């Protein structure tokens, strides 16, 4: 019964891995994968020496780092704050509302962001209300990272909180009672009981995040960016998509670029897992 599933993984996951050998060849559709000539590491060299290399690498890392720095702690903070709410109904209302944006499709969310960022859009109305100048926000390279990160947090904050709330509900309530008897303040209880209770979950999710550091959500970048902001918005995956499929068809070159990204990712994941095993005894695999 496993046969169809094994076949699926062979064809759609492992065949492309085999197909990635074209990164070391000069692939043309006519000659096929086998018939094309070997060129060794030529495409990798070309990429490392090109003007684009630093641009896309820098953008990929900075955008991911922003997500990590602001996007990662946000749901933890929200979970801790929700946990301190006394009114059960209110708590549930906040949660329910905060999930909503997760259910709206990425295309629609980006459509809204693009529209709100236009010269006479909502964001500019707010900016001018506070005495600022209105401008086409998404055509300035300086704004892209902020808009990208902020809108991602807006969309996923509530939903990412679920997992931490689940971890919080697993903490033994007797610990709180005991600490109250001992006269621990609320802050101390958060620090000594609540936070340690969710640390394992935090570490696991952090490892996963670091493993995906190079795989910034490029679908969203494609939806939001335009040639004016390539300087800050173009990441490795979007570069691969443009040079390999949408604008030109440099199959071998872009496969090499994609392979470089996958490799770095893989190394980061294994490194993060090792590190975490060493310092905290938590590991993913």
């Amino acid at each position: 019964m496993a046969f169809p599933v094994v076949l699926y993984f062979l064809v759609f996951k492992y065949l492309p891995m085999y197909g990635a050998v074209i990164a070391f060849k000069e692939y043309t559709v006519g000659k096929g994968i086998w018939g094309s000539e070997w060129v060794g590491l030529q495409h990798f060299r070309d990429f490392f020496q090109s003007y684009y290399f630093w641009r896309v690498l820098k953008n990929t890392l900075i955008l991911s780092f922003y997500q990590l720095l602001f996007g990662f702690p946000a749901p933890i903070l929200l979970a801790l704050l929700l946990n301190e709410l006394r009114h059960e109904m209110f708590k549930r209302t906040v949660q329910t509302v905060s999930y909503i944006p997760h259910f709206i499709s990425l295309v629609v969310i980006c459509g809204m962001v693009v529209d709100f960022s236009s010269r006479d859009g909502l964001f500019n109305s707010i900016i001018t209300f506070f005495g600022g100048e209105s401008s086409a926000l998404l055509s300035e390279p300086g704004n892209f990272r902020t808009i990208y990160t902020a809108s991602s947090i807006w969309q996923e904050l509530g939903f990412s909180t679920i997992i931490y709330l689940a971890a919080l509900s697993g903490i033994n309530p007797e610990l709180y009672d005991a600490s109250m008897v001992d006269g621990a303040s609320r802050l101390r209880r958060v620090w000594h009981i609540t936070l340690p209770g969710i640390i394992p979950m935090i570490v696991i999710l952090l490892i996963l995040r670091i493993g995906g550091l190079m795989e910034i959500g490029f679908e969203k970048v494609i939806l939001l960016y335009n040639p004016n902001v390539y300087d800050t918005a173009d990441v490795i995956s979007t570069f691969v998509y443009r040079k390999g499929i949408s604008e030109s068809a440099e199959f071998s070159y872009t496969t090499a670029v994609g392979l470089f990204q996958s490799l770095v990712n893989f190394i980061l994941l294994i490194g993060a897992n090792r590190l975490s095993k060493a310092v905290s005894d938590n590991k993913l695999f």
Partner: protein
Amino acid sequence: MTIKRTIGEKLFDSLNVLLMILLIIITLYPLWHVLNASLSDSNRLMAHSGLLLLPDGFNLDSYKLVLSNPSILSGYRNTLVIVVLGTALNLLFTILGAYTLSRKSFMLRNPIMLAIVFTMFFNGGIIPTYLLINNTLHLGDNLLALIVPGLVSSYNLIIMRTAFQGISESLLESARIDGAGELRILWRIVVPLSMPVIAVMILFYGVGHWNSWFSAILYIRDRDLYPLQLVLREILIQNSTDSMTTSAAMGDKEAIGESVKYATVMVATLPILFIYPFLQKYFVKGVMIGAIKE
């Protein structure tokens, strides 16, 4: 036992509540803004600036335009086909794979599992996958190109396998003694016992299909086959509302275009928001199942 709250704690509680109210406003206002803009008169909307707390000059013209647009309608139809057919096939394959891989008696269980997990962390990349589907399998301009390459998600397969492993082995053993074959055991015992996790899978896969747009960009050229999200991308991101506003005079086009965009957002989002309260508990459950470590 109640301990009296200190002034500091009371202050914290009030600030916390205020912060949460602010969060609610920030989350809901953009949606409220879009709703009001979609119900507004297009010319007055153009002149309007600032927050929209209520529609400006209530009318439903933009909805009429959107709902009579052939692209939106065919987009809805294609997406419906993809969601229903895709999710059904996803389920079938995931259940078959998860069941086999959950049986301890299956010799190749561990190597196959390892090979599947490996694909979660390493892949051939966009280009080789694109070449395989487009040039080797010739699935271009075929809705199957949006379904077949994603038949099984490794992540979902692991969740399902974990659920199947929770079913008591002696139950299956007694069925086997009664002469039931593996397929019969799967459909008559394992699947009915796993309905909650299957519901979660239907949701994960279904919502994935509903939201997906990038694979359609790669493989679909024929406009009649565009899924809804691709039509939305044209209207919302690439700003092409021409197909809906051709009959309007030049000056009005821009104005109509704006309110049509907002109405499009509503038409594409309302169905989800309506069923969302019913889905919520399954999503919450799904996230938690996904969090279980093996």
